[in-house]
């Protein structure tokens, strides 16, 4: 008898083979191309660049060389700033789209807000360089209006990196926060108003806490994508400081030092894991 017993779920005659046949390709893929690479990277990180055996030198390089761990500090600072600024910018925007824009325009308004998503990411970063340049649009406007005498140093700074990142993540977060606000039952707001809360307190005590899980998911996504991104800091940051991905790519691009690059990647991964554990309770994926 090939029936899955002890299961409330229906599977007549299909046998034990079918469920495994269904999930094995995905599991196998993940094991082969995600877990195994990770292990390979782990091994690689423990070898010396010029062949040779086991060594912890790659890790000790990171922890002892200030210019290396400085990259991690920079990365964490930039990522934290980007995450906070993006959420602060996107939340009110998503709120306006969800609550101030008339229902039938909302779809269009949202589409419009994420349209630039479909310009190439690389090109978009580069485009910010043109916007922020010494004689770019912003400086020309500012000097033209007489708001500043000298053009501001905007491009090739951490500010530029942060701006490029925030641009991307505001779009992303607007989408997630908008969806969150929309799925909030209107009776919560009504109930709060009914019990005497004004708009501000309704927002603070009810709407905000109820959309917090959604914000956390978005913030974590922002964190992961931001801390691992190479393009934006490389194009916009002017190499005035290095972030972790730049440091990793430098090991590969300049010296082909895969062991060191692996070690740095694993350290980066460890940091992301800590962030994941911090938000873990908000990040469940379950069936509807």
């Amino acid at each position, binding site marked *: 008898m090939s029936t899955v017993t002890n299961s409330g779920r229906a599977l007549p005659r299909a046998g034990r083979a079918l469920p495994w046949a269904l999930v094995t390709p995905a599991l196998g893929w993940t094991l082969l191309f995600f877990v195994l690479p990770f292990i390979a990277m782990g091994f690689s990180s423990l070898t010396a660049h010029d062949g040779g055996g086991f060594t912890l030198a790659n890790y000790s390089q990171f922890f002892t060389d200030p210019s290396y761990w400085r990259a991690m500090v920079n990365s964490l600072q930039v990522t934290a700033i980007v995450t906070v600024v993006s959420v602060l910018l996107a939340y009110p925007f998503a709120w306006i789209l969800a609550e101030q824009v008339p229902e039938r325009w909302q779809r269009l308004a949202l589409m419009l807000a994420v349209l630039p998503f479909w310009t190439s990411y690389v090109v978009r970063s580069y485009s910010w360089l043109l916007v922020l340049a010494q004689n770019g649009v912003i400086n020309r406007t500012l000097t033209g209006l007489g708001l500043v005498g000298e053009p501001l140093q905007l491009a090739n700074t951490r500010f530029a990196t942060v701006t490029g990142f925030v641009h991307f993540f505001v779009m992303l977060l607007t989408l997630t926060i908008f969806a969150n606000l929309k799925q909030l039952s209107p009776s919560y707001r009504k109930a709060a108003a009914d*019990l*005497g*809360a004004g708009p501000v307190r309704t927002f603070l*005590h009810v709407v905000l806490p109820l959309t917090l899980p959604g914000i956390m998911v978005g913030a974590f996504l922002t964190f992961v994508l931001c801390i691992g991104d190479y393009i934006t800091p490389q194009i916009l940051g002017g190499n005035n400081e290095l972030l972790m991905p730049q440091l990793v790519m430098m090991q590969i691009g300049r010296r082909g030092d895969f062991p060191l690059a692996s070690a740095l990647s694993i350290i980066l991964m460890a940091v992301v894991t800590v962030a994941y554990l911090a938000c873990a309770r908000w990040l469940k994926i379950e069936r509807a």
Partner: protein
Amino acid sequence: MSASLVDISSVSHRFGQQVVLKNVSLQIEPGSYTILLGPSGSGKTTLLSILGGFVTPSEGKVFIRGEDCTSVPPAKRPTTTVFQDYALFPHMTVGANVGFGLRMQGVDGARRAAKAREALALVGLAAAFDKKPHQLSGGQRQRVALARALVIEPAVLLLDEPLGALDLKLRRQMQDELKAIQKRVGTAFIHVTHDQEEAMALADHCVVMNDGRIEDEGPPERVYARPATRFSATFMGESTILSGTVTEAKSGTVTVATSAGPISLPGAPQPGAKVALAIRPEHLVLGATGGAVALGSAKVRDVVFQGSFKRILASSVEDPTLQFIAKAPASAAVQPGDTIAVSCNAGDIILLTD
């Protein structure tokens, strides 16, 4: 104006082109339990929302305690609403939910907790203070919502299908509790439902709505026994309906020609008027030793055992399109296929002229 607690005066409301309330007037007395009853889309929720301040009526005024509240926001009205989905704040404990209204009034923490505990005790949930809403059953959540609304001592409590999501057994139980709580606190309750039995079980005052209008209102016994309109008669419980024409009318008694023969009963309409006669199932008498008014004989189509009684469906032998719905005691020995005499008493016949 009168001393009514709530006075809804000629309220009409439109959503875009659609008129959903048509010149509705209604008074609510202090301490009463009013049920708004009507089919889906009849405007019950809209009327309740106008009372709660969530919707401003297109026309007409709402007075509460004599004051014009027509466009006072919900937060500033002496009304509180219990929502159908309860709308408990999932991120707060039960205690914090119940205390929310007091917190908004600036009541300090200790007094708030005390009052919240009191309110929870009132609904029999003293122990749930520190739980989160998701740890409670449907019926318990419902009671928390009630406590949350009652703790701020509103003059009027509005309930929009508060029992709609519960299963039958729990529903009955909650009906008993709602009624008991209402009596205890003395607040006026206005409760929306489309369940006739709920209306009859709870209401002091029953308002039947249809298509944006009030069809009938009054004590539920009266509305059930003497419905004002045909809609109200069919909506408030089952009936056998006989259509007919008045052939004679004198000194408060009319004779109506129906397919079951001429029937005389008290009434005022003029000869020639088209009328309908409605008879409640429990008023139809089956068998030879019947009532004063004979309705011919009928062939039993179905006997449905309902525990304490049997519901009997039968077709008139004289006019097979005429369907009788009767109730008989559980002990009655009626079988499908039997042919039996049907009769009733003139005083139990409801005369409907519209």
